[in-house]
């Protein structure tokens, strides 16, 4: 009798302790914010308010190995702004996953500039997570942005996104093992069964397959996206497509496990240096052009310095240093002329300085939006995870 009473009392004590700690923890968690729900409205996009001369501190988030060694310190010397340059963007979706809870509350985690790919810039803008530029702070950007990049469908006025570097998505082939692959349609040729790979990046893979099907990806509707995804699904079921990859197609091409893949132009410059049999080819249907863009998030401290940075890298001499180091397609006019003197070989490379006839059939990377996006993404992910 007394014993059972004791047990009950002990149990009560344990429960009380548990409830107390749980309440405390919940309180802490609530103070810390978190959760992923927003307020349900798309915020009216605010615009950068310039405040005199740039000064103070500036934090920039960019992808790894995407800048030369001198540009940041040169900018600091010239402008007097002290820069914290962090390379913490490895994947658009993952970076979004990391920042979204903050952005949802109008904070940017202390960062004033993110560098994200077109579709992610678009998505962030739609969610009201970005600030519009004040053109007054961006004279070089207005003047030197290359013409073909001036009006992408998601930001026709370039009002909130400034390209950092661009690239092309097309075919990367082993010239010794698949000499005859010249088009995206050739990837569906049964003689390469089990040796073909495509990218897990939906906005590269699906639009290229649309091109093979004779559909213009620019402004394609939901049905056309889904039809292309169906075609890819068919190639998976027949064993034509070995697997879907990110940059790791490099390994499979090098070993010969894959002979023709959908791949990025920037990678190919480096891969070719290691293995001369690897070559990036412009598909006969054309390529996908994408850009990684500098954007200014909501709640960004020191937007004045952020605009100063954007404008600084649009000076051709500054951009030439970056282009020489990263080997991607530069978005700035006049860089080729500067590099032609410094490094003529580099200035001739079509993958770094593609001329208009080279990219004439290419499309700026399209992206579905809103509910359509969720549905199409789900369909594509269902193929990847089938």
């Amino acid at each position: 009798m007394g014993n059972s009473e004791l047990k009950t009392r002990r149990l009560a004590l344990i429960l009380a302790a548990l409830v107390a700690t749980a309440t405390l923890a919940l309180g802490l968690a609530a103070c810390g914010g978190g959760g992923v729900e927003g307020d349900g409205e798309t915020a009216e996009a605010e615009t950068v308010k310039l405040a005199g001369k740039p000064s103070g501190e500036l934090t920039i988030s960019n992808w790894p190995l995407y800048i030369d060694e001198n540009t940041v310190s040169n900018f600091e010397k010239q402008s007097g702004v002290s820069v914290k340059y962090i390379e913490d963007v490895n994947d658009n979706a993952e970076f979004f996953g990391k920042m979204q809870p903050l952005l949802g509350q109008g904070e940017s985690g202390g960062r004033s500039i993110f560098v994200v790919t077109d579709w992610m810039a678009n998505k962030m803008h739609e969610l009201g997570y970005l600030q519009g530029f004040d053109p007054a702070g961006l004279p070089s950007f207005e003047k030197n942005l290359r013409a073909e990049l001036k009006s992408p469908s998601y930001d026709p006025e370039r009002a909130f996104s400034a390209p950092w570097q661009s690239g092309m998505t097309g075919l990367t082939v082993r010239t010794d093992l698949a000499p005859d692959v010249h088009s995206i349609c050739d990837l569906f040729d049964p003689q390469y069964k089990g040796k073909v790979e495509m990218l897990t990046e939906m906005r590269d893979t699906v639009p290229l397959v649309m091109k093979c099907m004779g559909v213009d990806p620019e402004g394609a509707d939901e049905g056309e996206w889904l039809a292309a995804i169906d075609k890819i699904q068919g190639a998976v079921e027949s064993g034509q497509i070995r697997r879907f990859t990110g940059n790791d197609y490099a390994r499979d091409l090098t070993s010969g496990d894959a002979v023709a893949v959908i791949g990025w132009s920037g990678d190919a410059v480096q891969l070719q240096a290691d293995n001369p049999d690897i070559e990036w080819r412009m598909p006969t249907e054309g390529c996908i052009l994408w850009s990684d863009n500098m954007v200014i998030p909501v709640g960004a401290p020191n937007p004045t310095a952020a605009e100063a940075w954007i404008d600084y890298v649009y000076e051709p001499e500054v951009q030439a240093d970056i282009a020489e180091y990263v080997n991607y397609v530069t978005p700035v006019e006049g860089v080729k002329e500067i590099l032609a003197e410094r490094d003529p070989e580099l200035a001739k490379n079509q993958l770094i300085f593609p001329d208009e006839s080279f990219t004439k059939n290419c499309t700026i990377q399209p992206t579905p939006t809103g509910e359509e996006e969720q549905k199409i993404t789900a369909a594509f992910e269902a193929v990847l995870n089938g």
Partner: protein
Amino acid sequence: MKLGRRTVPYALLAPGAVWLVLFFVVPLYYMGKLSLESGTVGSLEFNWHWANYSDALSLYDTQFVRSFLYAGTATAIALVLAYPLAYVIAFKAGRWRNALLFAVIAPFFTTYLIRTLAWETILSDQSPVVEVLDTLGLAPGGHVLATGGAVIAGLTYNFLPFMILPIYASLERIDVRLIEAAKDLYASAAGAFWRVTLPLSAPGVVAGTLLTFIPASGDYVNAQFLGSAGNQMIGNVIQSLYLKQTNYPSAAALSFVLTALIMVAVLVYIRFAGSEALMGEEAR
């Protein structure tokens, strides 16, 4: 202040309890709430959206079945490989015992990801392993990498030590005099093993299978790097929902379903194998 005898246990319990509440109960609560929301990122709304659960089951039943199939197969293969190895280390290795145990753990000095990526090289199309398998007709389509077989091989390899160590621990504890007694009483070597050694090592086998099967069911690394589109496991779906589709509610619901299914499977298994086997003699 002198702590009363009664309060001491609670004081000792407190750090663990706080830890458990902070890092298990609280996240679980948020996950539970999230799993009942609907809408897209930026406009998620809590509205008891139970459809996330029914959708999770109906849309991804294939991946669930596949996950348990792969994890189960990997566990079975690991058991077949691990038992003899653990037996040798425990009873026959002599002075090599520590060296062999070290060899079992040695791969853990490399990260999980690198160990998995190494299999891309081992199972590459031109590798000797695959050429032998191909000659034997065991590599349909001429390749092993990017198939379900490669995923199972990766899972087996990565979780093998979790099978070996508990089995070794339970074998090593066995009093050899019991086996000698069995032989004195005219049991054959096989008979002694079957009626003395094996039952006494059952706790290790049960612990080993659980330690292998549970993490293998939720794994996504092996399927991502060694599998292809038709070999993705439920972990890959959850990863894709969270990070690529930013469909947090479905991902949360799917995680709960996975947890529940694994718990049911484990309870059934323990019921079948007996909790005594799991806890050893102490449970009696």
